[in-house]
């Protein structure tokens, strides 16, 4: 461990001493907007202007500048470049490395596979060994950006915007609200796409390429969150620059890596749904779900609307309109900091039969149980060892059944009553 850290710190110093990335190849950009937003600083706080300034102000600016430079250097040292990804041995190793093979299975699970990441990194079209590389830039970067900031060249045309991996927040996953997605969740998103958004399905890519892309998304997400945490720590909370590689790793990187590693343990595993094998049972469940949907306890209609058309906030005053967390803070004064304009969030129209996170009952259960992180959809279920939610598992299952029946329920004549009446006529 100590040796690995020493060598990692050596790498950091090596990069600091100045080897610039190859000319013309894309770079991960350090993202100023978050830093400025979180630290309440302006760009002028980082550069010496022509105006007269006292020595204190100059020293402050110099310190700011040094910290910003440290962030940029630490990022290259800890993650390499888009053409040449790198990871500390504590974060990831190539799976064909002897060190990887000597690890215990649990320790392997905690680490990224650098071999997969290399397959996805680089420029498209294959490297000297003829191995396919550059998968991320070929398939993903035009929307999600080289850094994974969700602001690639085509992003501005899309609604919703592509996911910004750097926030470390993923909406459609199987885990509790505040947990990271599992590998299987990201893989499912790639394979199935996200209907109702611009994310297409990559089902027909070979499995190893999909797995490489999933690993690369995790890599970019960890890198991006590390960048945010480090910049906010140093510049907004005025922490000192870490003295050693070990300190940097422990304070800023390990907590993120550990949260990714624990995601498997945070998967929402619902109890079996209440039996609804007969049409009568099913209809009773749908009816209960309907009452819950429009009732106070679940409060679905507050956003999804009295017709479940997702239109409750149409034309609402600015303060009542809904936004994703990353759009919420944009306002007239600071809008120039962001690459993408402010975008309102539309609650799902549940009558379309399009489900972004999947249409299986278990998917919808997880949406209701854990909510949708990053947006206003709250967690309805009780988190494992955490906060008590307003809904019991059976109640969630009733709502699932009702939501699944909504695309087939005529707006003017509620489905459940009509179907019950039909059944009675038949008997």
């Amino acid at each position, binding site marked *: 461990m100590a040796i690995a850290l020493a060598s990692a710190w050596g790498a950091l110093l090596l990069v600091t001493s100045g080897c610039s990335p190859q000319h013309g190849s894309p770079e991960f950009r350090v993202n100023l907007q978050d830093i400025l937003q979180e630290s309440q600083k302006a760009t002028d706080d980082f550069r010496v202007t022509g105006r007269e300034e006292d020595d204190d102000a100059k020293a402050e600016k110099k310190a700011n500048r040094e910290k910003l430079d440290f962030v940029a250097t630490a990022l290259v040292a800890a993650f390499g470049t888009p053409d040449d990804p790198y990871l500390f041995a504590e974060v990831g190793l190539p799976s064909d490395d002897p060190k990887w093979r000597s690890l215990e*299975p*649990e320790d*392997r*699970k905690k680490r990224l596979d650098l071999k997969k990441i290399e397959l996805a990194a680089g420029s498209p079209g294959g490297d000297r060994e003829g191995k396919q590389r550059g998968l991320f830039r070929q*398939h993903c970067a*035009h929307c999600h950006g080289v850094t994974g900031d969700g602001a690639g060249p*085509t992003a501005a045309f899309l609604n919703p915007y592509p996911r910004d991996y750097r926030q470390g927040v993923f909406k459609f996953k*199987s885990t509790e609200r505040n947990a990271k997605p*599992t590998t*299987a969740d990201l893989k499912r998103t790639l394979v*199935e*796409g996200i*209907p109702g958004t*611009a994310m*297409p*399905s990559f*089902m*027909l890519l070979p499995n190893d390429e999909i797995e490489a892309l999933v690993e690369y998304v995790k890599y970019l997400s960890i890198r991006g969150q590390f960048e945010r945490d480090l910049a906010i720590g140093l510049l907004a909370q005025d922490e000192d620059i870490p003295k050693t590689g070990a300190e940097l790793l422990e304070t800023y990187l390990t907590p993120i890596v550990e949260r990714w590693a624990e995601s*498997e343990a945070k*998967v929402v*595993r*619902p109890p*079996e*749904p209440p039996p609804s094998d007969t049409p009568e049972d099913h209809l009773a469940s749908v009816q209960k779900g309907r009452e819950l949907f429009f009732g106070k306890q679940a409060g679905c209609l507050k956003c999804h609307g009295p017709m479940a058309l997702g239109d409750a906030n149409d034309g609402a005053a600015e303060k009542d309109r809904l936004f994703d967390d990353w759009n919420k803070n944009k306002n007239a004064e600071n809008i120039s900091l962001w690459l993408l304009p402010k975008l309102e969030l539309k609650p799902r129209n549940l009558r379309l039969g399009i489900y972004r996170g999947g*249409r*299986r*009952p*278990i998917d919808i*259960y997880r949406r209701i149980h854990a909510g949708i992180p990053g947006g206003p959809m709250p967690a309805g279920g009780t988190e494992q060892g955490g906060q008590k939610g307003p809904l019991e598992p059976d109640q969630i*299952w009733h709502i699932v059944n009702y939501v*699944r*029946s909504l695309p*087939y329920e005529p707006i003017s004549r509620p489905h459940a009553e009509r179907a019950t009446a039909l059944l009675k006529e038949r008997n």
Partner: protein
Amino acid sequence: MGKFWSILFLLVPILGVGLFVWAPGAGFWLPRDISTHGHQIDHLFYFVLWLTGVVFAATEVILFWFLWKYDANSNREPVKYTHGSHNLEVIWTILPAATLLFIAIYQMNAWADVKMRIPKGLEKKPTVEVTARQFEWRLRYPGPDGVLGTPDDIHHVNDLHVPLDEEVMVQLKSMDVLHDFFLPHLRIKQDAVPGMQIPVWFRATEPGTYDLVCAELCGWGHYKMKGRLTVEPRAKFDQWLRELASAQEATQEAAPDEPEE
């Protein structure tokens, strides 16, 4: 030097025809036809290819002959100008016009067979609904009730399966812009138009997996819009549908695999 240029022009028909003689053997030709109606379309293709091929070769050879015969080095006579020949002009206007008219009439039956004469009752029995979207093919199969738009519909994406040796009815839609549903091995190519539901039908005669591509430039991600067609016997197809349907009803998910070793 003068005759060198005429030889160069002679190379055009020779290489042009040579390319077409070489291509089929080298694998650069039409994909194998696995449909029942495809031979009609292939026949029209070959008919037009031969017609234009013969005219092309003849025109090029005549061009060569003029270049060769009236080479400046071996012709010392002054140039003679004419005001053209009325008769010739009439002939070379009427001949192509008549040929085009012939082709227009000759292909009508094939067009009607492929695009208009839906086998009886088939339109009411869709095998699958294909909705093109930037940039994927969303698929919806009717469940056991055989009707689309009911709760037992089976949803899938990009991976189109159809039964072997049966009339397959595809209801083609588009969610956003123009796309084109292209099954090269089945000689099927049909635009998907937003706001329209277009019936496309075919009968596949050989099991296997084939290409499904978008043949209408639909945006920057057009190249991504690649699907896969799998033709399989009815029993296997039904089994596949049942598996999809039960996966779609999942209320539980298996725990992830135990760590290896």
